[in-house]
């Protein structure tokens, strides 16, 4: 196989691989299709085409795959779009492994386009965009190389090196042109009403459930993905917030897991429009990111009002209803990819809901203890409290004791019969839920009302707002203080409250999230309105117009100036471009001649004005110059390559130049010897 052909096939296969990857990043394709395609790609890249001789048999394989997928779709275990995408990928894989002729090439490229379209249907992420561009570039070059290859007669080498430059230029222009088209071509789509959303990097990780179960292995603390973005007003202007973001609370503990006394929703969704509130409230504009994976609204402690809820789906954004669930949880009624809303919270230390507002069964629940609670819990609590009866002071005393005596760990032993006793008396280490549960239960044994709260702790400043990561998920304790409401007491050691992920990973994720949010703003959500904004911002002045001037009907002179400038710039660019494209590129033989002439110049052979290498060679031969014998074959080869239609072979130019250089060196050394000889002769 020719060298150019191998390169072209490798590019074709790689392009197809990227097209498949653009679907695969959505994480929705079945694993077995990923594996099948991956194996096919590796085999194809290794240059093996095992399906060449078994066309019909392998087509049957495809049929089997289609049947499998179809059954899955009928059974409801596979989305139709996902199944179609997977099938496109497997068609491509089958084609990759077939005889690489023109038809197969076309089919591979076509299936690549199908896969890219499938990728667009499955995800619209940043990675998808990257893969799309790489696919476009690789496939274009492979196609163009195919054209070049078919133009070269059989048996001759494909001039890969020669065509790569122009090809790369062409593809570069195509990419730039596509971007310009994207930015400027009017796009009328159904998303004009608002930004659409994309699911982001893989599957969501955080979440709220109706229960919190102690046990299992702790991994969530290590996850640096951003689940929440918030803009606060008044802006606290701190790099790191010490804020508790409350998601929901739990009041019933059965020895293993927490739940709420009132778990059922009253079914009434509501839609609240928030107006600017009282001055002492903290206003938050919150966006729940796709990585959040739940529908629960969170707000800084202590949430006062939530509203202006908007769900972002693939079809656009819309105002939606929220509903209140048990445990003070407020959630979106409809599922979306991401959500945004506004919230008002009471400043820290302000009074919240009072115990009198709670229904009796919930008041009772705040004191309930699980059956069979280890008696040592109550004994220990009494010993630590040592007669302290004020709930808040007691809670703080207990929490200080817990933080002092117990250590934090993410490694858990798994399910044990009594996790609280295990934590308090056996392992003496645990994570936030253990600390919070222990504090809550110890308070309850002493007759003080308390409950478990879950949400997030922290907040990191990023470009004017704050982000909260999945790893910031936290649990803490609410103590009911008569007359003041629920007060937050956190038993977890302060160092372990916020995200535990490595710093570098956090920064990488930060960077990725910034780029991704740019991608969403500038590419995915870029619509006709944005185009108008771009155009308007080009023509609109940034100065404040003078008030006494009546608004004129004609465009301001500035607009004409800008238009002229733009036209001039476009003209200049066009001129530069045409000059660049039409400039003469030195032929390989000409470059060789330049190199030869440079060597001759270094040998102090002067050339007449306009004297070509051919003429120079003839003159040196006439003058019987010592370099003439060395130069003659070089000149001859140059003339053959330039005018005789016999191009220089690979490495031939280097070899000829090396020969000439040796001759030049010998010549200069001889010249030097002869230069020093006359004085010696005189001396003798």
């Amino acid at each position, binding site marked *: 196989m020719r060298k150019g052909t191998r390169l072209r096939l490798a590019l074709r296969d790689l392009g197809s691989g990227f097209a498949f990857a653009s679907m695969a990043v959505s994480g929705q394709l079945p694993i077995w299709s990923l594996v099948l395609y991956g194996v096919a790609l590796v085999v194809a890249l290794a240059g093996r085409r095992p399906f060449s001789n078994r066309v019909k048999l392998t087509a049957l394989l495809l049929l089997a795959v289609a049947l499998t997928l179809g059954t899955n779709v009928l059974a409801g275990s596979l989305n139709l779009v996902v199944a179609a995408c997977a099938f496109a990928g497997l068609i491509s894989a089958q084609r990759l492994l077939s005889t690489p002729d023109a038809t197969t090439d076309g089919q591979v490229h076509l299936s690549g386009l199908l896969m890219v379209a499938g990728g667009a249907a499955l995800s619209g992420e940043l990675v998808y965009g990257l893969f799309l561009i790489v696919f476009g570039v690789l496939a274009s070059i492979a196609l163009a190389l195919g054209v070049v290859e078919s133009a070269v007669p059989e048996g001759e080498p494909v001039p890969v090196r020669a065509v790569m430059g122009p090809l790369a230029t062409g593809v570069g222009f195509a990419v730039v042109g596509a971007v310009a088209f994207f930015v400027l071509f009017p796009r009328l789509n159904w998303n004009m009403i608002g930004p659409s959303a994309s699911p982001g990097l893989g599957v969501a990780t955080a979440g709220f459930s109706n229960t919190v179960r102690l046990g299992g292995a702790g991994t969530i603390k290590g996850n640096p993905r951003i689940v929440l973005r918030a803009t606060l007003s008044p802006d606290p202007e701190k790099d790191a917030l010490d804020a508790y973001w409350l998601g929901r609370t739990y009041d019933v503990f059965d020895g293993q897991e927490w739940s709420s006394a009132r778990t059922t929703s009253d079914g009434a969704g509501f839609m609240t429009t928030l107006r600017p509130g009282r001055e002492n409230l903290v206003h938050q504009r919150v966006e729940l990111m796709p990585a959040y994976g739940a529908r629960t609204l969170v707000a800084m402690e202590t949430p006062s009002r939530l509203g202006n809820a908007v769900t972002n789906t693939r079809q656009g954004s819309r105002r939606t209803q929220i509903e209140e669930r048990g445990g003070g949880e407020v959630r979106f009624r409809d599922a979306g990819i991401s959500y945004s809303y506004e919230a008002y919270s009471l400043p820290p230390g302000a009074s919240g809901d009072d115990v009198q507002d709670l229904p009796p069964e919930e008041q009772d629940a705040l004191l309930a203890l699980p059956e069979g609670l280890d008696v040592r819990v109550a004994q220990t609590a009494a010993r630590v409290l040592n007669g302290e009866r004020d709930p808040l002071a007691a809670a703080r005393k207990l929490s200080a004791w817990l933080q002092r005596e117990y250590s934090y760990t993410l490694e858990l032993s798994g399910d044990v019969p009594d996790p609280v006793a295990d934590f308090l008396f056996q392992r003496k280490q645990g994570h936030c839920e253990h600390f919070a549960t222990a504090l809550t239960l110890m308070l309850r044994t002493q007759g003080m009302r308390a409950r478990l709260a879950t949400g997030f702790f922290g907040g990191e400043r990023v470009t004017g707002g704050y982000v909260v990561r999945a790893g910031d998920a936290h649990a803490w304790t609410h103590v009911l203080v008569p007359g003041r409401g629920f007060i937050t007491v956190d038993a977890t050691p302060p160092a372990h409250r916020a995200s535990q992920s490595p710093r570098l990973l956090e920064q990488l994720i930060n960077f990725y999230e910034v780029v991704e949010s740019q991608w969403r703003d500038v590419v995915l959500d870029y619509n006709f309105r944005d185009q108008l904004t771009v155009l308007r911002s080009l023509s609109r002045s940034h100065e404040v117009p003078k008030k006494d001037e009546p608004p004129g009907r004609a465009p301001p002179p500035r607009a004409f100036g800008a238009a002229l400038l733009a036209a001039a710039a476009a003209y200049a660019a066009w001129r530069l471009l045409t000059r660049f494209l039409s400039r003469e590129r030195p032929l390989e033989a000409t470059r060789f001649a330049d190199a030869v002439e440079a060597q001759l110049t270094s040998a102090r052979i002067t050339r007449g004005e306009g004297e070509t290498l051919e003429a120079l060679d003839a003159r040196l031969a006439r003058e019987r110059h010592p370099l003439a014998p060395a130069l003659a074959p070089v000149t001859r080869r140059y*003339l053959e390559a330039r005018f005789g239609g016999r191009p220089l072979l690979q490495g031939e130019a280097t070899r000829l130049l090396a020969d000439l250089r040796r001759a030049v060196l010998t010549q200069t050394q001889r010249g030097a010897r002869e230069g020093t000889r006359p004085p010696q002769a005189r001396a003798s």
Partner: protein
Amino acid sequence: MNQPARALSPVPSLANARSAMERIATQLGRAVQGKSAQLQLVVTSLVAGGHVLLEDVPGVGKTTLAEALAKACGLSFARVQFTADLMPADVLGAQVFHAQTATFQFRPGPLFRQLVLADELNRAPPRTQSALLEAMAQGQVSLDGATHVLPAPFTVVATQNPVDFSGTYPLPDSQLDRFMVRMSLGHPTPEVEAGLLVTRDGTPPLDAVESVSGPEELASLRAFAAALRLDASVADYVVRLATATRSHGDLERGASTRAVLALGAAARANALWEARDFATPGDVRAVLVPCWAHRILLRSAVQGVSARDEAAHLLEEIARKVPAPR
């Protein structure tokens, strides 16, 4: 010591072509000594399929050269002395009435030879000149409605005296254009002249010339040369040179398309000297002046030798200004 007759096979290779050309040039050198560059040019023109115009004062070996060429190449030869009373029929031949058969029969003139020396061409009246020049262009003669093909390879070597113009009819430019090259031998160097005095002991110089080729070999040489590669850039170079002569301020008329074709053909033939199967800009430069100097018309009214030098000078200048492809 005649060599055995050569196998007059078509020239199969570059090396054969070059050696054939060198053989001819060597034989010419035996007759005309010390003029190897001019002799090469004559052979080049012969191989390129062109006619040669020799401009020289009398007595420098023009006739000897033409005869030697005919002998070396094994071509039939005729010499026509052009005079003021020479009629076309004297050159082309005429219909002669045969009394016995009562019919007219064509009696071929001296033109029906493979190599014709037209001596002092400019002394003949224009009718006769044009009769010859038409035959040169067509390779055939039309007389009284009948066409008579001239023997191949029909080649004319014409001479004219560039100094003595009295009683001459200068060749029109359109007819000069039909000569592929114009050249002059010039006087030999003193050494060669002295050598001639010493060595020439009564034997005519032509006796030393041996026949080393034949019409078939010449024909195959011509076909071979015409098929040589002329790169697009070299062709472009030739055209650029022509354009430069056409727009030059000192020139009344620049090179014609026939001149362009002739230069290409001469450059191809010239490439054979280097055993190359392609022509280079160097080949073009080598034959540029002899090929074009008689085809361009100067604005200044100078004539004769000075006009010839002026034209050559202008062409050299143009060749310096028009960059060669590299």
